């Protein structure tokens, strides 16, 4: 047998897919107590929280990494090359396990060394840290490419005006690279929302694990996995909508591609 339960032939499941018992589906998916809709929504909320956190952390690492790769010394550059290459060559699942154990271990060892008690690291923080670390490698490459795409004259002009590196970063480099970076970063955001599902493997309660629990208890496997798929899809489509707006905003003032042709 596969995981399909021989003990429960799933008469309920078949019922759930007959049009006659649409009420049964609504009951299973209802957000209040007997239904499992609320559980799924809480899972979705956790997924979104982690995805947002990981993307923000990834953006910070990515910006620093891109500047290190472009303007850093030889050692910084080589170390960053190792970081991006290794992270992009190893499956996320393996990285998540490694960083999850290594990260919590390291923090606890540091804490005990200073003389504090060991702490339990919350799944949320660990998930954000792990996915952010992975996202950082990808965003480094995206942002590096975007900075390279800025017309060189703009950066030279900023230097000629005597701008400090911080001011130049804030006023010139970041805004000017944004239109080049947004498609890549948007892709990374979509990847982040889907990578949160991998945290189910280390036992963090997000949408996929919530679905698994709901399906395991009610035996309505197909129904709940389809419902979770619909939630993920809705999240992706909604993100696409927002991304389109943001992209249009970041391109304001630039000649449109259509007119250029």
């Amino acid at each position: 047998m596969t995981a399909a339960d021989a003990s429960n032939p799933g008469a309920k499941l078949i019922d759930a897919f007959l049009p006659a018992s649409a009420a049964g589906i609504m009951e299973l998916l209802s957000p209040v107590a007997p239904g499992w809709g609320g559980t799924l929504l809480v899972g979705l909320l956790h997924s979104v929280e982690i995805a947002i956190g990981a993307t923000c952390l990834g953006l910070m690492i990515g910006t620093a990494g891109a500047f290190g790769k472009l303007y850093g010394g030889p050692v910084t550059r080589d170390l960053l090359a190792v970081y991006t290459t290794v992270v992009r060559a190893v499956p996320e699942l393996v990285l998540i396990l490694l960083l999850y154990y290594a990260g919590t271990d390291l923090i606890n060892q540091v804490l005990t060394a200073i003389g504090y008690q060991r702490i339990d690291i919350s799944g949320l923080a660990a998930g954000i840290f792990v996915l952010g670390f992975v996202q950082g490698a990808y965003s480094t490459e995206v942002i590096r490419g975007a900075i390279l795409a800025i017309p060189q004259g703009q950066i030279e002009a900023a230097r000629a005006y005597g701008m400090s590196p911080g001011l130049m970063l804030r006023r010139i480099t970041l805004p000017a690279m944004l239109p080049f970076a947004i498609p890549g970063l948007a892709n990374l955001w979509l990847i982040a929302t889907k990578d949160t599902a991998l945290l189910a493997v280390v036992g963090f309660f997000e949408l996929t694990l919530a679905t698994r629990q709901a399906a395991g208890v009610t035996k309505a496997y197909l129904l709940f996995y389809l419902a979770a798929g619909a939630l993920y899809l809705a999240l992706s489509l909604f993100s696409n909508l927002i991304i389109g707006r943001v992209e249009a905003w970041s391109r304001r003032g630039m000649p449109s591609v259509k007119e250029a042709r």
Partner: protein
Amino acid sequence: MSAEATAINMAARASIWLKPHRIVLMLIALALVLCAAFFMRWDWLPQYWEMGLMGLWRSLWILAVTCALGFALAVPLGLAQAGGPIWFSAPAKVFCTIIRGTPLLLQLWLLYYGLGSIFPQYPWIRESWMWPYLRQAWPYGVLALTLSFAGYEGEVMRGAFAGVPRGQLEAARAFGMSRWKIFRRIWLPQAFYRALPTLTGETVLQLKSTPLVATISVIDIFAVSSKVRQDTYLTYEPLLLLALIYMTITGILVFAFSRIEARIPVKIG
């Protein structure tokens, strides 16, 4: 002359690696590897290496089969979206959107737990020749990974098919080629060349997706490392070795694809 040029080339390549800071970094890396080799526990290796090889073989086999099948599925998907009538292109687009919009882990569990819970209820499925296969886990893993690869690569192939210059197809038609011959000789090869660079990335992504099949009890290399971790209570050693194995496979894949890419005429279109 050419021997000289190769010698200079090789010297230049060697000098990239022999900069002082790189030598220091490599020494540090070597020291770390040696530390890992001597101070970590590797005594479980002799007991598990046969199982590991089996797992590795299964991972590679799943990778090869799903990539091949997925690509075969991606061609019609891309073609339908690039130039098909709406009743072909719309379903293809919906398929690609759904596959790309949901996590692979969820698709995998949907197929394995969802379909897996429905099949046994039908006696005719249980009596058919497929049942011995449907009872195992790997067909679901292969199916999910194939569909995922097809979804992502179908989108790439759409762009590749659309990117072939119209003039090429018009010229082929002017030569009196039949539609099938145009597709086979002109459209598909040129689209394939265009898609090849992204194909490398997609294949590496697919490799990185294969460990997910371990979550539905397929014993691939990832599952072997999990078993070692459970048996020996070691946290890092199996995972580090696993990461090394995946990096090696990625390196080989990237190298192999770069060799294939180098053989393809650069000026197309």
